[in-house]
């Protein structure tokens, strides 16, 4: 099939998708902008660390500095003029955007005519995409709660006192990588997938493929126990139940194992990463048990998302653990 540019344009130029297109440029730009300043500071830090005299006397910022200058300046006008300028620029941008692009308005709401695909606004598409990998109670309720709580515990588990109030990369490698993986690698990426890749029926369409609502996906998703061919019906006579009952229980019990193995392997991996360098060992020693447990738990749970994505997309595995009440 020929590369369908029109399809790409149609998605990218949908007025409500313009912000995510903008974010595609803004996120890398600001990432670069932050890291550039971080690297500049890291160079300064390297100089100060190699030269004890400089550490005492040198100005510890990359900004210009003259001993004659005051450390603080008047808010009015030095800060507030910037604020007013930015406000004007934002207003102009907003005006230009509003004059050139109209807010969408579809047909009146009609419960009898389904939209295909029915998509949430772009900023929630990460969560909607998660519905592919997890049941709704996890994707729609547990995961958002974990994200919110996970963000809120960051200040209480990050025991690294360095890098407070200045950009740096070297002094905070681990936390920066974690945040970038979470924010860019998971959150933004899933939104991008939800916006550009997911077409009718929430099917996967590569860029350039036409969104064909008639397409049928033949991929059959299996559960992990099916992959392993777990059949517990032979247990039936032992427990005096029917074969079906025994099979359900066997599946439920089997599912615990991969989960436990995942938690153990992930914990070892997380622990290895958290104590890899001399510096991270030092930070590790500063942490209380509660901090450690909280941090490891959240890191492991965060890791479970890409693992589940991989299992589903690459190995077409739907559930790892199937119980009569819920499945994961």
């Amino acid at each position, binding site marked *: 099939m020929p590369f369908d540019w029109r399809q790409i344009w149609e998605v990218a130029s949908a007025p*409500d998708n313009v*912000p995510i297109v903008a974010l595609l440029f*803004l996120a890398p730009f600001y990432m670069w*902008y*932050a890291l550039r300043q971080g690297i500049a*500071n890291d160079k300064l830090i390297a100089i*100060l660390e190699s030269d004890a005299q400089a550490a005492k006397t040198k100005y*510890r*910022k990359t*900004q210009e500095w003259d001993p004659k200058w005051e450390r*603080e*300046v008047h*808010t*009015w006008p*030095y*800060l*507030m003029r*910037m*604020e007013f300028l930015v*406000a004007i620029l*934002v*207003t102009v941008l*907003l005006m230009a*955007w*509003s*004059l050139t*692009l*109209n*807010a969408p*308005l*579809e047909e*009146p*709401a009609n*419960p009898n005519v389904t939209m295909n695909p*029915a*998509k*949430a606004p772009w*900023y*929630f598409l990460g*969560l*909607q995409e998660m519905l592919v990998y997890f049941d*709704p109670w996890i994707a*729609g*309720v*547990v995961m958002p709660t974990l994200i919110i709580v996970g963000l809120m515990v*960051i*200040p209480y588990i*990050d025991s690294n*006192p*360095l*890098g*407070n109030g200045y*950009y*740096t990369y070297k*002094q*905070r490698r681990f936390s920066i990588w974690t945040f970038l993986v979470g924010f860019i690698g998971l959150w933004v990426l899933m939104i991008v997938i939800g916006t550009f890749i997911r077409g009718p029926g929430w099917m996967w369409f590569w860029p350039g493929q036409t969104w064909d609502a008639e397409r049928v996906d033949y991929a059959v998703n299996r559960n992990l126990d099916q992959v392993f061919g777990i059949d517990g019906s032979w247990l039936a006579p032992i427990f005096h139940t029917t074969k079906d009952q025994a099979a359900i229980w066997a599946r439920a019990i089997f599912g615990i194992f991969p989960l436990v193995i995942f938690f153990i392997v992930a914990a070892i991996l997380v622990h290895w990463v958290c104590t890899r360098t001399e*510096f991270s060992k*030092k930070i590790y020693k*500063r942490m209380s048990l509660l901090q450690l447990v909280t941090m490891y738990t959240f890191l492991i749970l965060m890791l479970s998302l890409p693992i589940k994505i991989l299992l589903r997309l690459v190995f077409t595995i739907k559930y790892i653990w199937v119980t009569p*009440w819920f499945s994961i």
Partner: protein
Amino acid sequence: MPEENGDGKSKTGVLEKAKDSAAALRETLTEKAKQQATELKEPEKTQLYRSIFRVKHDEEPRNRALSVLSNVFFHLHPAKVNRDATKYNFTWGMGGITFYLFIVLTFTGVLLMFYYHPSKIQAFRDILYLENDVPFGKLLRNMHRWAAHLMIIAVWLHMFRVFMTGSYKRPREFNWCVGVLLMVLTMLLSFTGYLLPDDQLGFWAVTVGTNMARATPLLGNEGPGGPQMGMTPYNDVRFALLGGSIVDANALLRAYIWHCIAIPLIVAIFLGVHFWRVRKDGGISGPAPVMLESEIKEERSPRPVILRPSGMG
């Protein structure tokens, strides 16, 4: 004045007297008018101006400080700030931009409310009316829509900046948490607004979104433990959100009230806390002098509370 003529001859005629006082009056009036005109050249000296602004706006350090401190809007700021924090490159102005967009949204939102009825019969037509008949209605709607999207981008980038500068570290842990709540509220604000045009886009987005609430553990009728808790489609958490079992008139009204009243009020309160804490935590965290690994101190336990007097930083 006749008495002051000094020549001893006082004028007696009534007419004369009147003429004299008229001349005198003319003289003082022109005098006053001239004075007034010169004063207008320096409006900051007028009583009106001073009653409003209370301080002179000149380059005196004292007055520069006072113009910030004595203005209810400006005094969110300290009188002086870290010289390097006034550049764009540290904060990217993202918090400020987010706040500005919130103000723009409040302003355009109130204007939109003049034209909008949250009812199934009117809502969609109101949008059509707004787009086609209300002067600048289309621009108004567009601005509200795009400012909302921009605010979400800005709040994410603000969080990103705060993370990358390590500004959530002591003593700003709590303000980071307030920020996280603000971000969630910002997204909810956008989401509740999505339903209000009552078109297919909003309807299905909210249908998809609230369908997840069915699956809430214990509180949703399809969630684990939900049925055991006695949850049905007519009493679970989704029912509470929608005011019914389907997205319909009650859902529209609820979305409207959350969107236009409840969440903006909650956001305003949290914003107050957020800004107040920025000040109490010692102002913006940087750009701070870099710290070296060799300077890490032993963790003291219990950790000392860092309090700074207000006005500093």
